[in-house]
């Protein structure tokens, strides 16, 4: 039974300067689970948003059971039987489980009054079906993350969708909860419901899927019946064989230790009694590239933010070029030669209301300050130099920062820190949300900078990025260093095993 219920034809999507989808033909088959694989930024979520009406394609068309359709919004898609479970929770924490499940589709009785009793009954049934007997009157804010995700799933089920899109539905679920979800998925497919499934847990996705589709860089690069393929095939197609992210700088140019992290301890901002970084020691020498690998919650971001001075150390010390920086604020650390390129570009890296040029010069205003006045000429020269050095593709220094692609925006954030003449540069997930071409440019740039004597420390959650330009790989797990590898002699499997990530081990 390979009946196509939903078909996307030559769909493209453009956000500003970024082409997220470059012409995709995608089919959803009746009563089957189609898994969509791809790295961050490959276009999976964008495609799902188009199928569920959240976004409209820039070009291309959708066909539902052979009829061309256009969804103006999610309500239209939902009315046609397409429902989506979001990667990010889209619940209202201030409302109850029942209110969230029926949000926007309240069951109304006489005189337009909401029939709470009926809603409560259905909500209860749904939660029982998901083997999570939460009282429907519980406030969502009182639930733990995994339970919230189950409410999200219950909401999607309550629609009686014929096509159910699940974007990372298990990211906060325990193993037993995943089993329950899979059971529900099998019941649904047996009833003829089509599922589109996206997960970073590749083995889990393979277990539940019938059909695999691999997206890379906005294009479908491979698809096959799951029975015919294995994990290697999926990973190989996701990453793209033979794609070079650059090579590490040569060790003979290493200088003195530029950055010393000694027994660093950082408190968890959400729960100050817990340590998110617990006794981590790392030395980075001038000219060296060190990679920190770890899963979500391993403490990578917390460590780098503590280094930059955004969050305090609760124990241990940081030394830059022989000087203890614990007492310095962010700008003093920048002046000393330590700069952070944060993980979330939009939230922490860029000022959206400012132009490309002004974003580039933001961290180094002091260098062209003449008395009280900023020297326009010197600023212009610096901006031109940085645009050239980090190879930002832009219409000009006055272009809006939002007009740049993700990769070029990332280069602006890196350029902003390089303009401060750092000796040590920290990068938190530098490849997040940028396409593969830009990724190799960014890594190539880092490698070049290290050759020029900069100490580079970057973090990543994609193991392929550890083994590209790093001299050493340090694996963080639950706030501690669980292993350290010489990048030249180690393998992806060793690194993943050390991170406690067995589910994805290839």
């Amino acid at each position: 039974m390979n009946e196509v219920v939903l078909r996307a034809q030559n769909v493209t999507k453009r956000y500003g300067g970024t082409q997220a989808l470059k012409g995709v033909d995608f089919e959803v088959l009746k009563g089957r689970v189609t898994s969509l694989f791809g790295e961050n930024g490959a276009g999976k979520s964008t495609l799902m948003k188009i199928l569920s009406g959240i976004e409209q394609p820039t070009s291309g068309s959708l066909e539902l059971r052979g009829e061309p359709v256009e969804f103006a919004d999610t309500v239209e898609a939902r009315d046609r039987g397409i429902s989506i479970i979001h990667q990010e929770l889209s619940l209202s924490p201030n409302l109850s489980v029942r209110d969230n499940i029926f949000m926007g589709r309240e069951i109304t009785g006489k005189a337009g009054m909401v029939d709470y009793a009926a809603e409560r009954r259905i909500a209860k049934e749904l939660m029982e079906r998901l083997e999570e007997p939460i009282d429907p009157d519980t406030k969502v804010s009182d639930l733990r993350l995994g339970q919230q995700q189950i409410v999200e799933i219950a909401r999607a089920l309550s629609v009686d969708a014929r096509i159910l899109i699940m974007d990372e539905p298990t990211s906060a679920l325990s193993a037993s909860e995943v089993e329950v979800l899979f059971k529900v998925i099998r019941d649904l497919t047996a009833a003829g419901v089509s599922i589109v499934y996206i997960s970073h847990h590749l083995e889990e996705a393979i277990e539940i899927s019938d059909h695999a589709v691999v997206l890379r860089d906005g294009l479908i690069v491979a698809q096959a019946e799951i029975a015919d393929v294995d994990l290697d095939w999926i990973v190989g197609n996701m990453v793209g064989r033979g794609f070079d992210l650059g090579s590490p700088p040569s060790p003979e140019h290493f200088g003195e230790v530029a950055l010393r992290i000694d027994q660093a301890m950082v408190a968890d901002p959400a729960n100050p009694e817990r340590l998110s970084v617990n006794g981590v020691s790392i030395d980075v020498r001038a000219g060296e590239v060190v990679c920190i690998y770890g899963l979500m919650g391993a403490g990578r971001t917390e460590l780098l933010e503590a280094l930059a001075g955004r969050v305090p150390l609760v124990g241990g010390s940081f030394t830059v070029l022989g000087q203890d920086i614990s007492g310095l604020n962010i700008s003093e650390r920048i002046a000393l030669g330590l700069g952070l390129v944060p993980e979330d570009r939009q939230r922490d890296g860029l000022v959206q209301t400012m132009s490309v040029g002004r974003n580039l010069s933001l961290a180094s205003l002091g260098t062209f300050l003449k008395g009280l006045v900023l020297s326009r000429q010197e600023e212009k020269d610096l901006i031109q130099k940085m645009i050239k050095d980090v190879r930002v593709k832009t219409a000009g220094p006055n272009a809006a920062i939002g007009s740049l692609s993700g990769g070029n925006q990332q280069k602006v954030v890196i350029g902003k820190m390089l303009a401060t003449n750092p000796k040590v540069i920290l990068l938190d997930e530098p490849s997040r949300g940028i396409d593969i071409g830009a990724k190799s440019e960014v890594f190539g740039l880092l490698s070049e900078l290290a050759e020029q004597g900069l100490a580079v420390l970057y973090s990543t959650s994609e193991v392929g990025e550890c083994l590209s330009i790093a001299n050493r790989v340090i694996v963080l797990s639950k706030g501690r260093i669980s292993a350290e590898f010489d990048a030249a002699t180690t393998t992806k499997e060793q690194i993943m095993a050390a991170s406690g990530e067995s589910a994805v081990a290839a």
Partner: protein
Amino acid sequence: MSQTTSADAPARTRRPSGGLDIPKLLLEGRAFIALIVIIVIFSFLSPNYFTVNNLLTMSAHVAVYAILAIGMLLVILNGGIDLSVGSTVGLSGVIAGFLMQGVKLPGMEVTLYPAVWVCAVCALAVGAFVGWVNGMLVAKAGVAPFVATLGTLYVVRGAALLITGGLTYPNLRGDPALGNTGFDLLGFNRILGIPTGVMVMIVIALLGSFLLNRTAFGRWLYASGGNQRAAELSGIPVKKVQIRIYVASGTCAAIAGVIIASELTSANPTAGNSFELTAIAAVVIGGAALSGGRGNIRGTLLGAFVIGFLSDGLVIIGVSEYWQMVFKGAVIVIAVMLNRIEVRSKRIKNAGAPSAPPPGQAGAGPGSSGTPPAVNTAKP
């Protein structure tokens, strides 16, 4: 000559080296067009409107609002709001008046009559102090700006009423015998035929323009208003910026308060009531974003002139006070709606996708497919 005095003042205070670009002004500046329309309409309706004397009188009214609005602009650029400026106008006038009346030293039979400049400086210091308190509440104690300044609005107004016992200090002309004359120079008098307040407004506008466009502090302000987290990670002292702008706003309010007290040569503790709203309106009409990071002095001045010339025009042609309120409100809303259209069309142009602009992407920058907006923001 008289034609250009009022309309040119705001235009002249653009970026010092920018020069005048009339077509761009017309295209960008709906506030500018609105001002022209207001002047033309009222000139037809009343023969007294478009006269040198009336334009100067109206400009003197505008000056007070404009000075408040420039301080408010700094706060709004940071993404904050300062509701206490109206009360600070009252308090600073009262402080000046209190000192002008003479201070009896306790225990001695002596009454001190400070010089006028001492009275004025003390009044400004009180305004700066109110601003500092606002800044500390917002930056250090983490109180939301709206709430913090709403609190000081009441406290400061209460303080002003307490000092005078609810009365007005009359007749602040001073006494030549006491050597404290000249208070009326600050607002009541004219310098070279131009009201002092207008001169002060021009000086403050030039200073503000310089601060925003040429100094590192200006850049800090735009950056921390546009994205505080990114500014902080770029080494910008965001808390210091926050405190200073509230101090600047409080000081501007005190300047306005002293000017008003001088104009009336009396200090009324209820002076400046609800002026904060007029100042906010001027800033918003001038194209600034309440979310921070967007706005400039030129626009804010235009906004102040639009409001001032409109309300004075309505008074001159004898429109009832109730209708004045209706017109003012309508102008504010229309101006802001026009601004939204402009911002949106700019964004579409910048996104380079005229065929299918992504709706509802107002806040989030495009290009980050890794961070999709929540579903309920899919419609603007």
